[in-house]
C-alpha cells in the first residue's frame, strides 16, 4: 500500500484515474478522426448528396417553333389559351389537402369535383387515367379551355383559390390554312414517356418530364429544332417541399421555326381532289368483281421535279391533327389507330406500298436498254404471251404488232415487256442460278431507280418497298419455309392437297420457293407480282426523268429559322443518285411519256390541255392485287412538277386518278376548262424559290391568297 501523501489516495485509484483519462481522450480522438473522414476525405460526395436533397426543379416549357408553308403561312403554330393549373405543393399544405379549393375551382369551370380531383392526382400503378404523370412540383393543368370570365373569376378572388393559377399558356394548334390539314405530313405531339426521358438523359437534347415530343411527320423529324430548350426554375426546398428560395435558374429558349416547301393552297387542292377521286370511284362498279370500287386508301405527291421538294403530299384516310392537342382520350385514340378506320395515321405517300403496275414500265425499259435492247428497235406487241400452258394476256387482249419501246410505253403494251422479262430471266440462267451470279438487268435497274430502299425523305418511318430478285426470293424462302412446309404437310394429311389452291401454293413454296420462276420475271417486267413500291419512290424516279436523270432526296423542310429570325439555315436539295439510264435513253423515255399524255393511255384526260405551252408527261398504271380490286396509279410530270397519285382498289390509272391529277395541274398552272391559261388564277406556275420574308422583328411574313381562289380550284370538276 503506497499512499500518495498529498491526496491520501491509493495507487489503484490513481492508476484507474489515469486509465479513465486515457480512455476519455481516445474517445475524443476517435470523434475527431471520424469528423475528418466525413468532412475532408469524403466531403465532396456528401456535398453532392446535399445538393440533390434540397433543390427542386420546375420546368418552364420553351415555346415550340412554328411550321410554315413555302409562303410563310403557318401550318402548325402555338396558340395562347387560358390554362387553369393547380400547384400540388400548395394544396397539400392545406388542412383538407385542398379539397375545398378544388371544389370551388370545379364550380367556376363547370366541371364536377371528381373530374378536377382526378386531373390533379398523381399517377401511379394503381391510379387509372386521368391522372397527372408529370413532376408533382410542376403546376398541374386542370383545363386549357378556360374562358376569360372564368380566368378572371379565379384571379380576382385569389384568396378563395390559393394554389390555383389561371394564366395564358401556349398550346399547339394546326390551323389548316385553306382547309389543308396536311395531317400526316405535320404529324403530332404527345407527352414524353419515362423511357424516352431516361434515354435522352445524356444526349445533347435531354427531355423533361413535362415535354411534348413529335410522334410522327415533321413534328418528329424536326423535333429537336422545334422544341427549343425548356427553362428550369430551381427552388431550394425543405424536407416537406416548402420553398425556401431560388437557386440558379435557366431561362427557356424558344424553338426554331421550320419553313417547309409545302404550298398549303396546292395541298388543299390535292387533299380535296384525292378525296373526290376516291368518292367518285366508290360510285363506280368494278367490271371484274362486279362490286363498286372500295377505294379504301390513296395518296398523292406533288414534287418539284428539279429539287425533290414536296409541294403537296396527301394521304387518305386522314384525320384532324388538332385531335391530339391537349391530350387524346382513349376513344379518339382507338379511332385513329384502329383497323376499322383503316389507319388514318399512316402517311401512305411514304408508308403505303403496292405493286406499281404499268408505271413500272419506264424502269423495265431502262433495264432493257442496259441489257442491250436498243430503245428504238421493234419488239412484238402480240395480244398475248405464252409460257408453257399459261398465257399472259395484253391489256384488253389487243395487239399492236412490232413496236419500239417508246411506243410500248405509249400504248402500255404488256407483251413487249413480258417477252423482255422472260428472255432476260433465261439469259440470267433461269431458276437454277444462285443469287448474285446473274446480271439481273431488270432488277438492277429497279434498285438503281431507287426502289427497295428509302428515298431519304425528311419524314419518319418511310418504308422501302421491295424488288423481288433472286436474293430476295432466297431470303424470303428462308424466313417462311418452315410455316409453308408445315402448312403443306398438314394439307397432305387431310388430303385436300390437290383441291385447295392455298395448300398447293404452300407445297410449291415449300419445295421451290427459293427459285425465281419464269412467271415471276414475266409479270415483274410490268410491275406486278411480289414487287412493292411507295408513291414517294415513284415520284422521285419520275422527277428524275423530268430533270434529266438526277434522283433527289425528297424534302419537306426547306429552311430552319432561329427564334429571333436572324439565322436562316436553308436545307439545300441533295441528290442521292442517277437514273440507271443514259441521257439519251432518258430523253427517249421522256418523249414517250409525253406521247402517253398527248395520244396514249392518259391522253383522254388531257385533251384540252395546252400541251404546247406546258408539255405534260404521264404514265398510267393499273396493278392487280390477289383477292382485291386493281390499284390505280398515275405518274405524271411537267418541267417543274411531278405528280404521282395512287388509289387502292379504285380501277385504272387514268380512270380513277386522271381527273384529280388533271385538276391539280389546272390549279397549279391556272388552266381553264377550255385549255386557256389564266395566269392570275394560277396557284404556283413556277416553284417557290425564295423563302418567306422575315420582318426586322423576326416574324415570318405570310403571303396569303384569296381563299375563294383556292376554294375555286379545290372544288373544280372539269375533265
Amino acid at each position, binding site marked *: 500500500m503506497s499512499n500518495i501523501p498529498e491526496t491520501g489516495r491509493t495507487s489503484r485509484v490513481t492508476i484507474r484515474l489515469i486509465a479513465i483519462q486515457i480512455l476519455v481522450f481516445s474517445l475524443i480522438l476517435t470523434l475527431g478522426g*471520424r469528423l475528418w473522414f466525413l468532412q475532408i476525405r469524403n466531403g465532396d460526395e456528401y456535398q453532392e448528396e446535399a445538393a440533390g436533397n434540397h433543390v427542386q426543379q420546375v420546368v418552364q416549357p420553351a415555346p415550340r417553333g412554328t411550321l410554315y408553308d413555302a409562303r410563310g403561312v403557318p401550318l402548325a403554330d402555338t396558340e395562347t389559351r387560358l390554362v387553369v393549373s393547380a400547384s400540388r405543393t400548395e394544396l397539400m399544405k392545406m388542412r383538407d389537402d385542398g379539397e375545398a379549393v378544388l371544389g370551388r375551382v370545379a364550380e367556376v369551370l363547370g366541371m364536377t369535383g371528381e373530374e378536377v380531383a382526378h386531373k390533379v392526382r398523381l399517377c401511379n400503378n394503381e391510379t387509372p387515367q386521368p391522372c397527372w404523370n408529370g413532376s408533382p412540383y410542376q403546376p398541374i393543368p386542370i383545363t386549357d379551355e378556360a374562358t376569360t370570365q372564368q380566368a378572371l373569376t379565379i384571379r380576382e378572388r385569389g384568396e378563395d383559390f390559393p394554389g390555383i393559377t389561371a394564366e395564358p399558356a401556349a398550346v399547339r394548334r394546326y390551323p389548316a390554312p385553306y382547309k389543308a390539314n396536311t395531317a400526316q405530313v405535320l404529324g403530332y405531339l404527345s407527352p414524353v414517356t419515362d423511357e424516352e426521358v431516361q434515354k435522352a438523359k445524356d444526349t445533347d437534347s435531354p427531355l423533361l418530364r413535362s415535354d411534348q415530343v413529335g410522334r410522327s411527320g415533321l413534328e418528329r423529324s424536326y423535333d429537336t429544332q422545334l422544341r427549343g430548350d425548356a427553362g428550369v426554375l430551381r427552388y431550394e426546398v425543405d424536407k416537406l417541399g416548402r420553398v425556401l428560395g431560388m437557386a440558379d435558374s435557366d431561362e427557356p429558349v424558344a424553338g426554331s421555326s421550320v419553313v417547309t416547301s409545302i404550298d398549303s393552297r396546292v395541298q388543299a387542292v390535292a387533299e380535296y381532289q384525292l378525296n373526290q377521286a376516291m368518292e367518285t370511284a366508290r360510285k363506280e362498279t368494278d367490271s371484274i368483281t362486279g362490286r363498286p370500287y372500295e377505294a379504301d386508301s390513296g395518296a398523292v405527291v406533288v414534287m418539284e421535279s428539279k429539287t425533290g421538294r414536296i409541294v403537296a403530299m396527301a394521304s387518305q384516310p386522314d384525320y384532324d391533327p388538332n385531335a391530339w392537342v391537349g391530350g387524346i382520350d382513349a376513344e379518339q385514340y382507338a379511332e385513329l389507330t384502329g383497323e376499322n378506320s383503316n389507319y388514318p395515321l399512316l402517311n401512305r405517300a411514304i408508308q403505303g406500298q403496292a405493286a406499281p403496275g404499268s408505271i413500272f414500265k419506264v424502269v423495265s425499259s431502262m433495264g432493257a436498254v442496259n441489257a442491250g435492247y436498243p430503245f428504238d428497235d421493234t419488239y412484238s406487241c402480240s395480244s398475248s404471251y405464252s409460257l408453257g400452258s399459261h398465257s399472259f394476256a395484253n391489256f384488253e387482249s389487243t395487239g399492236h404488232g412490232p413496236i419500239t419501246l417508246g411506243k410500248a410505253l405509249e400504248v402500255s403494251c404488256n407483251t413487249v415487256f413480258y417477252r423482255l422479262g422472260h428472255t432476260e430471266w433465261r439469259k440470267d440462267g433461269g431458276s437454277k442460278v444462285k443469287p448474285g451470279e446473274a446480271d439481273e438487268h431488270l432488277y438492277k435497274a429497279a434498285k438503281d431507280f431507287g426502289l427497295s430502299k428509302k428515298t431519304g425523305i425528311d419524314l419518319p418511318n418511310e418504308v422501302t418497298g421491295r424488288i423481288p430478285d433472286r436474293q430476295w426470293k432466297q431470303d424470303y424462302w428462308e424466313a417462311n419455309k418452315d410455316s409453308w412446309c408445315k402448312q403443306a404437310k398438314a394439307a397432305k394429311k387431310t388430303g385436300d392437297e390437290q383441291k385447295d389452291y392455298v395448300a398447293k401454293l404452300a407445297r410449291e413454296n415449300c419445295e421451290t420457293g427459293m427459285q425465281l420462276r419464269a412467271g415471276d420475271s414475266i409479270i415483274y417486267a410490268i410491275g406486278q407480282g411480289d414487287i412493292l413500291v411507295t408513291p414517294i419512290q415513284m415520284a422521285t424516279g419520275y422527277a428524275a426523268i423530268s430533270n434529266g436523270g438526277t434522283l433527289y432526296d425528297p424534302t419537306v423542310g426547306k429552311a430552319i429559322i432561329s427564334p429571333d429570325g436572324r439565322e436562316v439555315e436553308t436545307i439545300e436539295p441533295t441528290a442521292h443518285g442517277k437514273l440507271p439510264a443514259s441521257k439519251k435513253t432518258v430523253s427517249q423515255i421522256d418523249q414517250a411519256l409525253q406521247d402517253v399524255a398527248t395520244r396514249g393511255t392518259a391522253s383522254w384526260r388531257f385533251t384540252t390541255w395546252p400541251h404546247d405551252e406546258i408539255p405534260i408527261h404521264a404514265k398510267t398504271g393499273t396493278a392487280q392485287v390477289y383477292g382485291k380490286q386493281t390499284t390505280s396509279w398515275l405518274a405524271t410530270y411537267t418541267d417543274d412538277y411531278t405528280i404521282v397519285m395512287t388509289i387502292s382498289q379504285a380501277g385504272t390509272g387514268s380512270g380513277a386518278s386522271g381527273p384529280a391529277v388533271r385538276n391539280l395541274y389546272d390549279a397549279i398552272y391556272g388552266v381553264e376548262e377550255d385549255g386557256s391559261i389564266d395566269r392570275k388564277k394560277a396557284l404556283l406556275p413556277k416553284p417557290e424559290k425564295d423563302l418567306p420574308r422575315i420582318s426586322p422583328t423576326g416574324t415570318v411574313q405570310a403571303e396569303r391568297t384569296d381563299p375563294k381562289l383556292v376554294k375555286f380550284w379545290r372544288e373544280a370538276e372539269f375533265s
Partner: protein
Amino acid sequence: MSVHSFDTSAVGPPKSLWSRVTARGSLARRLDWPLMLVPLLLCAVGALLVWSATRNRTELTGGDPQQFLYKHVVNTAIGVALAIGVVWIGHQRLRSLMPVLYTLALVLIGLVYTPLGATINGERAWLNLAPGLQIQPSEFIKVTIILGMAVLLSAKVDAGDREHPDHRTVVQALALAALPVAVVGDLGQVMVCVVIILGVLLASGAANRWVFGLIVTGAAGAVAVWLFGLLDEYQLNRFAAFANPALDPSGVGYNTNQARIAIGSGGLFGTGLFEGSQTTGQFVPEQQTDFIFTVAGEELGFVGGSLILLLLAVLLWRACRIAREATDLYSTIIAAGIVAWFAFQSFENIGMSLGIMPVAGLPLPFVSYGGSSMFAVWIAIGMLQSVRIQRPLSA
C-alpha cells in the same frame, strides 16, 4: 460567508473588495477558470447552433426566429446560477442532503408514469410541471447517482477505516444506483448511467471483480435485451439503422443518413452560419437537441466541429485533473463520475451524428437545447468547482 473554504482569506486586516476577491487563496483565485470559461464558450456556440437550427421552424418557435436563442441563453444563465449555488453550498454539505435529493429524484422519475408525464419522440421521459414548463427528471438522475454512490463508497475509506470500499458497500451502492436506473425507461439515459456507475466504481477503488463484473453484466444485459425483445420496436430500428443506414433510406435510416450528409457536406470551413441547406431545409430531425452537432458540422465545417471537440477535450482534461488532485475519495468519485458522464454522453451524441454510434436521444452537454440537461451539467460544473476549491493550496 458561511462557506468553509473561505476561511483562509478571512485572516488579517480588512481589505478592499477587489483585493479580497483577487487575494491569494480567495474563492476567485481558487476557482478553475478554464472550467468556467470552456462551458460558457460551449454554451455560446450552442446558442448560435440552436438559433440556426430553429429560426425557420415556425411550428416550434411560433414565429419568433430568436426564441430558442433567448431560451438557450436564459437556460445557460440559470445553469450558471445553479453552479454558483452548488459552489456556495459546497459538495461536502451535499453528503448530508443526499437522502433528500435521492428521494426527490425517485419521486420525479416516478411521476413521469403518472398523468403528469409526457411522451416526446417515443420516450416517456418528461414531466409537465406547468404549461410550457417541462422537465426531464432522468437528466438529474445522473447527478443523484454520482452523489449517492460517492457518499456510500467513500464513507469508510474517508473515515480511514478501510483502504478500499468493501463488498457490502459496493453492493449497497450498486443497489442505490440500480433503483432509479431501472425506473428510467429512456435507453440513452440508461446507457449513460451504466457508464457513470462503471466510472464511479473504477474511481472508488472497488475490487477489480466488481468492475469486470459490471462490464460483463452490462454486455450480457445488452444481449439479453436484444434477444428477448425488451426494447421497443423503434429502439431496435434505431440500432438496425445504425448498423446499416442504407437499409431503408426513406424510413429508419433516413435520419442517420441525412445527419451524415449534413456533416459531410460541411467540408473544411462549412457553409457558414445559417447557410447550410440541410439545416435550412430541416432534413435532419431534432437538430436543436440530439443532432445539434450536425449544424456545427454543416455550417461551421471541420474547423467548427473540431473546435467543439477541442473545448470538450479541455473541459474533460480539467475535470480529470480535478479528480486526480482531489483530497478525499468522496471528491475523487464525484469528479470521476462527472468525467465518465460528460465523456460518454458527448461521445454518444456526436458519435451518432457521425454515424459511429447508434441513435439514442441524448443531448450534447452545454451545446444542445434543453433546460433539464443544461441545469444538470452546470450543477456538475458546480460540483467540480467545489471539489477544486476544497483542495489544499499547492505550495
